[in-house]
């Protein structure tokens, strides 16, 4: 008996040494655990054994070895039942734990068993076994009641500290952590299933927990409100999340999405800008949890729906959407800066470009980025830069262009397999459209520089490329539809551009022909119609001109949209007709 006692003491001391050591390892605890489990279970040693098991499992969990932890926990529960002489005759963990807990109620072991049960809870949570966690929640209520008892025990045992085995992690802190993590994971799951989880999340947000986790509860509340179609309240929640944890980039991203939905473009641009700068800071994606802690909350937050709610696109994608928004919402100079940053980032030698691979890229193809940037430069009245960019695109695509492109019947193509289209992303048509768009932009540049001859040359090159595409049916199906639409618009725009250039150098017949063709290719083109009227006027066909103007009078040039590439829309870069002058002309005509 004396020997046994001394052995007990030495084990206790060993445990305490390990627990207070700076480098915790599950191996050494496991060794101790094994040496303890070698002797038959006994009530005297149970206190120590349970403490060692607790420490071992905490280490296991910290190293993400959940299976090992669970196995050890189940074995311990069975050993406990051996002591009590109880046999539930099942290996179902929840039944085991219930029986074990019942058997130790009122004894000194109770709180030890409870803390082990908490670890089991953590393991379930980490393995996303939420039903098991739900079953267990009633027990956790029970545990909350016994909180007072714990404190008593603690005060009482403080005196003879040396004899008590030290725990590596305070069970109360573990419980707090698990509570909020459970709330977050359950909230995310139910949110994906379409439930309202506001009250639970708001309750969780009041609990003591790391800031990052509190921010997650606010974030989820926001998502919930957004689902319930209350964007303003959702924005409030996101703001709270950001206030709680400034590194919660997801809240920024969600806010940007909501602003976009509210069509508050200025706020959206602002949000995107901040988001981009946040993403460029080192290690923002991983919320910096307190490093001194043994158990990181991320261990318990591995649910699929949560990570999809928390996902944020890559910095480059954010930069691209920021640039596009700026250009579309007439903040051209900012947009140009963003585009140039983006192109620089893509060209850079360092790992930044390579790292893009990691996330699934939502960036458009590089030539399209170049052309968008070129369009932005053109709108910012920097034609020389725009031409340089277009030259690069033309240089890289020109000798890859097919002699002609024949678009098959959309129905036949669909039968042939839709997977083929995405497979061959850079096919002839796409390349041809890139090159044509580059020529179009160069034509725009020259007309901005008032070099009409060069403009005519480049518009002609564009047209010559576009007529290489033959297609039978104008039936637009979903995949080819965008390409066909771009094709038609490019045709319309280049013909209009050439017509306007011809008009500028007084070759009115050619101008009239081109503008007419342009109207056929793209009937919505406003400037083509106005210039058509102008040319008619100059040809002294004033009645027709008046009719044409009357027709187009009401509708202004449409603002840019996101549905089509910027370069395939009317950029208002060319020579404009003064509407006051037109009106005057009409009035002149009126009396006659």
């Amino acid at each position, binding site marked *: 008996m004396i020997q046994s006692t001394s052995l007990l003491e030495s084990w206790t001391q060993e445990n305490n040494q390990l627990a207070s050591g700076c480098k915790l390892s599950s191996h050494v605890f496991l060794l101790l655990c094994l040496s303890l489990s070698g002797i038959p279970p006994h009530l005297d040693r149970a206190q120590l054994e349970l403490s060692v098991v607790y420490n071992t499992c905490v280490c296991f969990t910290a190293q993400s070895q959940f299976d090992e932890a669970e196995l050890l926990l189940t074995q311990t529960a069975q050993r406990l039942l051996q002591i009590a002489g109880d046999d539930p005759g099942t290996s179902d963990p929840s039944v085991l734990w219930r029986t074990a807990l019942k058997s130790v109620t009122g004894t000194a072991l109770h709180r030890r068993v409870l803390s082990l049960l908490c670890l089991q809870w953590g393991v379930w949570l980490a393995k996303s076994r939420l039903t098991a966690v739900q079953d267990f929640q009633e027990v956790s209520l029970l545990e909350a009641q016994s909180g007072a008892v714990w404190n008593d025990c603690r005060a009482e045992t403080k005196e003879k500290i040396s004899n008590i085995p030290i725990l590596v992690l305070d069970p109360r802190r573990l419980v707090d952590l698990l509570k909020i993590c459970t709330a977050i994971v359950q909230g995310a799951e139910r949110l994906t299933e379409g439930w309202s989880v506001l009250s639970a999340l708001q309750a969780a947000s009041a609990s003591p927990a790391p800031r990052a986790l509190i921010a997650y509860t606010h974030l989820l509340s926001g998502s919930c409100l957004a689902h319930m179609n209350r964007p303003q309240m959702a924005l409030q929640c996101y703001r709270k999340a950001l206030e709680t944890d400034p590194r919660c980039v997801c809240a920024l991203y969600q806010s940007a999405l909501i602003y976009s939905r509210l069509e508050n473009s200025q706020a959206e641009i602002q949000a995107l800008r901040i988001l981009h700068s946040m993403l460029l800071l080192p290690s923002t994606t991983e919320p910096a949890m307190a490093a001194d802690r043994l158990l990181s909350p991320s261990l318990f937050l591995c649910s699929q729906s949560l990570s999809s709610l928390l996902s944020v696109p890559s910095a*480059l994608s954010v930069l691209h959407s920021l640039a596009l928004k700026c250009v579309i919402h007439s903040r051209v100079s900012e947009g140009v800066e963003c585009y140039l940053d983006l192109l620089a980032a*893509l*060209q850079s*030698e*360092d*790992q930044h*470009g*390579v*790292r*893009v*691979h*990691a996330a*699934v*890229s939502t*960036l458009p*193809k*590089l*030539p399209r980025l*170049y052309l968008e940037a070129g369009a932005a430069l053109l709108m910012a009245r920097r034609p020389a830069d725009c031409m340089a960019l277009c030259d*690069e*695109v033309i*240089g*890289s*695509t020109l*000798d*890859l*262009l*097919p*002699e002609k492109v024949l678009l098959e019947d959309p129905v036949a193509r669909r039968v042939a397999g839709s997977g083929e289209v995405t497979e061959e992303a*850079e096919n*002839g048509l796409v*390349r041809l459209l*890139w090159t044509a768009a580059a020529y179009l932009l160069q034509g725009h540049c020259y007309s901005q520089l008032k070099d009409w001859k060069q403009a005519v040359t480049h518009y002609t090159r564009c047209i010559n490329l576009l007529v290489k595409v033959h297609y039978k049916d104008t039936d637009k199906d979903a995949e080819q539809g965008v390409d066909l639409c771009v094709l038609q618009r490019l045709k319309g725009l280049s013909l209009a551009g050439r017509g306007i250039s011809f008009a500028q150098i007084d070759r009115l017949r050619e101008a009239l022909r081109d503008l007419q063709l342009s109207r056929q290719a793209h009937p919505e083109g406003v400037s083509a119609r106005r210039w058509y009227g102008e040319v008619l006027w100059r040809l002294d066909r004033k009645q027709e001109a008046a009719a044409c103007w009357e027709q187009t009078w009401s509708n202004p040039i449409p603002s840019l949209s996101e549905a089509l590439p910027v370069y395939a829309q009317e950029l208002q870069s060319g020579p404009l007709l003064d509407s006051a002058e037109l009106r005057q002309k009409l009035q002149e005509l009126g009396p006659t």
Partner: protein
Amino acid sequence: MMEGRCAAESWAEFGLLGKSGSSLVKCGTGTDVFICTGGEEVYVFTAQEKTLRAVLQMPAAVRDVVVSHDEQLLFVACWSGVYCVNVQLLVPSFSHDAGSGPTELKISTECLVAVADRVSSLLVVGSVLLTLCRTDASWSLTLYQIQRTSQSDPCDLLASFSLPLVSPKVQSDTESRCVLVCVYPGDLMPASSPPHPPRSHYPLQPLLFRRLFGAEAALSKSPVVLCGLPDGRLSFLPLRIPGSRLRILHSLEQSVVFVGASAVMETDAGCAGCLIALGKQGRAVLIRAGRAGLEGGGGTRFTLGCVPGPVECACMDQSRVYYSTGSDLLMVDLWDGSSGTAGRQGDKEDEASRSNPAAFLTPISLNVSGVVALHQPARSSAGEVQLLSLSVRGRLQSIRLPVRTQEDSLSKGPSSQVGRSVGDILSAIGDICERASVLKTIIRSKNQILKQLNQVVNISFLLSNRSESDLKPVRCRGSVRWSRLLQRDSLNLTCVLENLSPFVLERGWTLSVTVLPLSCPLEAGGEASSVNYSFPFSGLGPGESVEVSLPVAAAGDASFPVTVTCSLLFSLWRFLGQEEATAPLDLQSACFSLPLNTLTVDWLHALRLSDPPAPARSSSSPADLLQGFISSRQLRCRGGQASRPEEYSARVRVSSELLRDALGLAPGSPRVSLLEWLLSEGCGGVKMERKGIKTDGSSSVICGSAPDNATVKLTAEEVNVEEKTKPLVIVEVQVKSSSVAAVCGLHHAVLRRIQTLLQKAGSSRMVPTTDLRLALQQAEEQRGQVWEASSVGVSSGQTPPLLLRVYQQLRDGPLLIL
């Protein structure tokens, strides 16, 4: 063409090469060379001082070695991961005496910077380290960020790309290394790269680059990684394009050994206009940019070529590829002046070379054997090319190629020999010796194969020149025996192959025996019931024989007679010492097949004899007759009419005189001997193994059971008849059984035997064989009908009348043979 022999100078010996790792020679920093010999060591050799500077002891066998661009870090790939060593550690410290031998460094797992399973190749592009690993289902290319600050920290994983394996069988060869190279557009000079491009990095002509990798790669000026895989695929990955993935450029259909690029034209200005990939068996592909504006926007020309393989390792300089076949080092000039520079080569010529790839690449031998690893050639200012090679014996040698100009090759004066040191010549002699021994073993094995082939052809002639009726000098004899195994009776045929020819049947021949029941209905798919047995045997000298045994039929199986066709097979793949399973499919069936004789097992062979019934039955004493009558009455009364099994019988009559003559008997009782002869004589090349035939005196009776378990009685009696008003003594053989099939089969068998008997005797005597043949035909017809009837099924109503008709026919025509 190239008369000047190259000078091979041996620099160091590293011992025999290991098998577990790969053998490599790679340039390091300055004049340092890193050498791996297939073991766990990496040797650092200074080319300038020709001394071994350091030895790195790795924890596992080395797979690949690569140096970072700034030449500060050395990455070593082992089976389990990539280790990083600072090159500064390899430079001997000042206190360290240069003469005291190489620095030895033991590399531990602390230097492990990337944990990866089964790393095959390494490459460094800028600050990115790439590893190519084979996993169970795919090849995976993984990108790591090289740590600049402290090299002991593990590298950050940037991204990983995978390419699924084609099929596990093709890629069973896990040992062969993959090739990883990097190409980039030639108009782009990477700012961080050293002035001379590192090994495995090739600037590519911008047009070719665009054509191969698309506008996006060209626009982003992205370096592109090319992987040559052991399954023959050449795949590529643009590094800097968001969302790019591994795609296939070409498939060489054999393990890719080398990928390089060559500067073709003068206008290229240092960038390569041609990509080249070499396969293990010598297939080569040259990839060049074609004319603009071809359909599909591709416009790249893939020219296939072929060099004599196998290619062990290769390297190339501006326009020449050097490769080793293991027995020789060869040089291929890609753009030889005589064959036309690629720039001037028209499309027509190119088409011709595509259609005839063998004529495309003609290598020049450099007479150096046993090279397993080559290092990128260095060209001195005088135009002399120097190659570093590692031989299979672990010798590091410097191979110096003479200056190759037209004048040189024409006026190769002795002056070039004078300056050569004795050491050079000695090592050259050593090389020749090695090469000669390799060639000698090849010639010896070829001779061996030719000798064997001669034997095979001799035997083929011997056996194929004779007609079926001739006795072949190699033939089979057979004997049948019933045996009982696991409660099942089966008829076993023991087949004895005799070699009576003067030639030896050597190892590699196979006796093939096909068992085909004759009476299986053809419309039911005749081939289904044929069974084929193969017996490989090892050598059969003249006069020797070999015995094999095989089951012919089981009890209850009545599909007799059975034809047993014997033939000899010799697979051509035996010559190459390969098993058939590993041979290519189209060649698996390439073999000599020589038909031998055919054996026939008929009803008589398959007859199981039992003791004859009580003599009372045959000797018809009145008491027995009465007893018989009573029992028959009883049966009839008890079971009704149908229960009594009907007895069928058939008779064959042969003139006694004829028999006597044919069997060569003394005038006596031919009937006994006829039965004995019927049951014992080997007919159709098959004998029966029987204990002895019990017959009683006057009328011989044999009882037995047929294979379909029906009891059968065979009797032979001498009868006096009158034929064409002439008294005659004949022997009548009667077959009696309750089974029609047995009666028909036995009748047929008896007839057949008598036919062969009479045919044998026919040479000396006129025998009415025409009648006999007629009878035989009739019997065969009947047998067919019986088979048909039984296969239609007993239940159908047509069967009994048909059987009855056959029976009637049998009864009505007791044939008389005179």
